[in-house]
């Protein structure tokens, strides 16, 4: 089992989710995040004082997947999140040793 974590642009979430669903992924966990990287933030002005906000809103997906699917899924995410502009985000993969579905106590592949 692997954990695929993807940090993407918020407005790509629907595309990515749809693409994953089409591929057969049935679940994922999503958190709001802020990204810091090459992509510039923005400037806000309050009573003549400028604030450079260098964090950019991002969405972070976690998907636990079967070993055999991991490459495809990374591919699906990377493609569907792609806009070609700076700040499109990253995908990384980490090994998972156990997965449990809380409702049933199932583990491993059945837990996904």
């Amino acid at each position, binding site marked *: 089992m692997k954990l695929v974590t993807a940090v993407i642009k*918020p407005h*790509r*979430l629907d595309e990515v*989710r*749809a693409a994953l669903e*089409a591929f057969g992924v049935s679940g994922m966990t*999503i958190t709001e995040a802020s990204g810091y990287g090459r992509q510039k933030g923005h400037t806000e002005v309050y009573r003549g004082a400028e604030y450079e906000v260098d964090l950019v809103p991002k*969405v972070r997906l976690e998907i636990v997947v079967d070993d055999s699917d991991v490459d495809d899924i990374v591919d699906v995410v990377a493609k569907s999140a792609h806009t070609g502009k700076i700040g499109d985000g990253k995908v990384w993969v980490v090994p998972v040793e156990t997965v449990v579905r809380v409702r049933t106590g199932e583990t491993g592949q059945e837990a996904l």
Partner: protein
Amino acid sequence: MPELSAGDTAWVLASAALVLLMTPGLALFYGGMVRAKGVLNMLMMNFAAIGIVSILWVLYGYSLAFSTDIGGGLLGGLGDFGLRGLLGEESLSSTIPSTVFVGFQGMFAIITVALISGAIADRAKFSAWVLFAAVWATLVYFPVAHWVFFFDDGNGGWIGDRLGAIDFAGGTAVHINAGAAGLALALVLGRRVGWRKEPMRPHNLPLVLLGAGLLWFGWFGFNAGSAVAANGLAGVAFVNTQVATAAALLAWILVERIRDGKPTTLGAASGAVAGLVAITPACSSVTPIGAIIVGVVAGVLCALAVGLKTKFGYDDSLDVVGVHLVGGLAGSLIIGFIASAAAPAGVDGLFYGGGFSQLGKQLVASLAVLVYSFVVTFLIGKIIDKVIGFRISEDDEASGIDLAEHAETAYDFSTIGGGSRPHTITRAPSADSEKLDASANSSSAPADEKEGSVAR
């Protein structure tokens, strides 16, 4: 024969608008105190109360409360049904046009009903509430308003005009009345799931303070407007309202400072409302120094009284009992003690040598309204509960009444904008589906399918 006074009319028109504003103010005051998943339902209960009661008022409510008494000072007749006879320029209530008086008094009916909603936050079926509001206004508020507010040279309501109890702007008719009803309804509905186990702290305190500010502002219409004239009586009512409220605010946060270590904003807002409640019946009959005493007493008593529900185990969620029943009682009874003939009402209370007479009247008036309101409300509540059910399901309560009853959530500050897919409905209202079924809807509206569905 009194003539029209444009000045008096101007003030009562402004006052009527001010009292209307109190109900949205109350909605925000209450709405900020519930959890984020119940704020919309709280707002809806209040706005629906405005809707229902306004219409009943114009149809028959005003008439039941303010038409010629049908006997014993218990109820008015139906002579002014629909207000048709009051529309001419010559139709006056004292020095103001009848319709202005109708408008002003109608706002009192609205807010009294709205006040009750705070006792049953987060768990009442919206349809049951709407039904309750209509029945309660009819069976409880309209008669009680007649008792207290209808004056007709000794042939008016039994409490105000015949008994001679002093309730200048509604300590009994509005606050004791709503407070007792809130208690009854809290008992009928029972406690919220998780009460005293889960934290149920206010989700938006600036909203609470905004609501308190609007209430305070509007209350000048409520109290000083009850002079139904722009004169010295209105001035005294105005100043007394301000200073009693200020005193209660300070008294409440002082209690907190001593008891809990910290003065809180919720305490300041609650104290202000407690002061406004308590000075309501008394603002014409005490001096400004007396008003300070009213405020201090109300602030301290109510700050302690909000703990009663934990002791006795009823979930009066937003303290309608602790603030309105207790505050209303405090204000109504204290008149018997500290009323001063120096004030416009011209009555001396016990401490000014007036004896026990006024105190007795105040006691009778307060208890009569308390008992009547409690008993009738309990019965109305129980019957509604039996017939259509008053409470939403536990699951709906857990996931939030806003979603369950209104299919909405209050806030979306999120950057995850893409978490939902719109399915716009353009069906005619004849196709009435009782259930929300998005897939059925979109398939029944194929023309929309392409545009409305997500472009995957």
